């Protein structure tokens, strides 16, 4: 039986111009990764393992203590079912329209209470960092989830290089603002640019990742290329994509979904089956690819690793 997968039809339907653009971005990203390899002292084998994409056969080159052993979500699902409102509000919009995003040259502006505030080129952000595969659960606030093999390095490593001062209590992030490249930013569905933030201890946690790839290959645009945050114990919208600014601030920074509906999306947004969204339940989730729903786990199953930093905190009040 010929099983036609949606990504196949998507690819054949994409106009030749955007396919051309995507090829160009892909080659550039691949070139960037290889350039990064020349600079970094240790280059993980995964990138050179021919960009293996198959969920069943792909294996991380260095299985780590943070990896989940659950079944991986196929690459085509991770790259065709996205919430990235900068490209439209439908799940297939990012894959369809993210080709116009220019991911290089890419800079991250580091500001605020750090000794090494500057505008960093992406290559310099990656300089000296050992990229590793991290297989994380990813839980959307809407009630679906995936298992994604990210490629990146701990945000903590980058933060340490920046030498934050004692006044740095929170880390704020910002996505690229470019309505000409990101058509969704022309709509008022959210305030642009997209912003997010973490408490300092959340940002320094070993689980928190700066990701540049998935399945061992560079991030596709629709997944937040060229560099994004991954905070697996929080709802997916906290894992801000296509980061252009990182600020170290004293007060809790604004976050986009909290601005849109403060009673529904809190600053912390820790995955919590006991605290429902005001309009729908968070007790269960649909793992993409599965028929039956699963029970949602406290902190998305990372309670052992992160529970400690919230001890004593009223999770219903600080949702």
């Amino acid at each position, binding site marked *: 039986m010929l*099983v036609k997968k949606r990504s196949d039809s998507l690819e054949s339907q994409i106009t030749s111009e955007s396919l051309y653009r995507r090829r160009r971005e892909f080659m550039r990203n691949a070139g960037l990764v290889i350039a990064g390899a020349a600079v970094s002292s240790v280059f993980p084998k995964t990138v050179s393992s021919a960009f293996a994409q198959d969920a069943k056969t792909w294996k991380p080159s260095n299985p780590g203590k943070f990896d989940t052993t659950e079944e991986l979500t196929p690459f085509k*699902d991770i790259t065709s079912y996205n919430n990235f409102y900068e490209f439209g*509000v439908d799940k297939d919009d990012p894959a369809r329209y993210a080709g116009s995003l220019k991911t290089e040259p890419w800079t991250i502006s580091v500001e605020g209470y750090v000794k090494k505030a500057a505008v960093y080129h992406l290559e310099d952000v990656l300089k000296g960092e050992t990229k590793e595969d991290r297989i994380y659960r990813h839980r959307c606030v809407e009630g*679906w989830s995936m298992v994604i093999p990210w490629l990146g390095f701990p945000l903590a490593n980058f933060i340490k290089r920046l030498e934050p001062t004692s006044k740095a209590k929170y880390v704020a992030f910002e996505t690229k603002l470019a309505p000409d490249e990101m058509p969704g930013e022309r*709509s008022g569905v*959210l305030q642009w640019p997209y912003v997010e933030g973490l408490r300092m201890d959340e940002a320094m946690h070993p689980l928190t990742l700066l990701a540049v790839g998935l399945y061992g290959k560079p991030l596709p645009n629709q997944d937040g290329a060229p560099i994004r945050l991954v905070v697996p114990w929080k709802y997916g919208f906290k894992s801000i994509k296509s980061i252009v600014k990182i600020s170290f601030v004293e007060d809790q920074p604004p976050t986009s979904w909290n601005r*849109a509906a403060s009673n529904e999306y809190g600053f912390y947004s820790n995955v919590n089956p006991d605290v429902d969204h005001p309009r729908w339940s968070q007790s269960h989730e649909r793992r993409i690819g599965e028929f039956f729903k699963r029970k949602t786990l406290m902190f998305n199953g990372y309670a052992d690793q992160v529970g400690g930093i919230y001890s004593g905190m009223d999770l219903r009040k600080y949702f």
Partner: protein
Amino acid sequence: MKKRNLVSFAKPIFFAACLLPVVILAWNGLNGSLSANPISDITNETGVWTLRFIVLTLLITPVRKITGWHWLIKFRRMIGLFAFFYGTLHFTTYLWLDQFFDWQSIVTDIPKRPFIAIGFASFILMVPLAVTSTQKMIRRLGGKKWDILHRLIYCTAVGAVIHYIWLVKVVTYRQITYAAIVAVLLLFRFIWKYRSNAVGTNRPAEKQVTA
């Protein structure tokens, strides 16, 4: 005579057209052409087509009153029943693919989640309309009582729009457009009634045409 034949010729074609959305949905489902979350796609598609058919149902009277195309009324029952059909599919998707017939959790879920409660109420209101859609029922109730009962569709339409607004993360032009359309279609009836009341009994009595 000619017009009646045209309508009876058009009806089966129109019927087939109304089935297209579910046929396409099933086709995509079997081909694996739905998204990575097919159950969500089925829920959304059946839901939005329920709303579309409700809107179509409400369009008949304003259009025929403005254009004088009274033969349109002959399609209203079919459109209304298709609204009920897609509503049933949508509700079944919720009961089966979302809740897996866990009746205990469904019974607690419905009052707890306002968007589900209002969706459920809007659907339930369509049941008496579907049941009384037949010629026999129209005769049994009598035109006037039937008309009054079938105004329940106004509640269903408003409820469906609110259901849609309450279930999305953030309201977009889509929900606003449906809300505006339903508002206009209901406002039309209100203005028309006010207008005919103001004018008095000089206007010729409207021919009660039932499909």
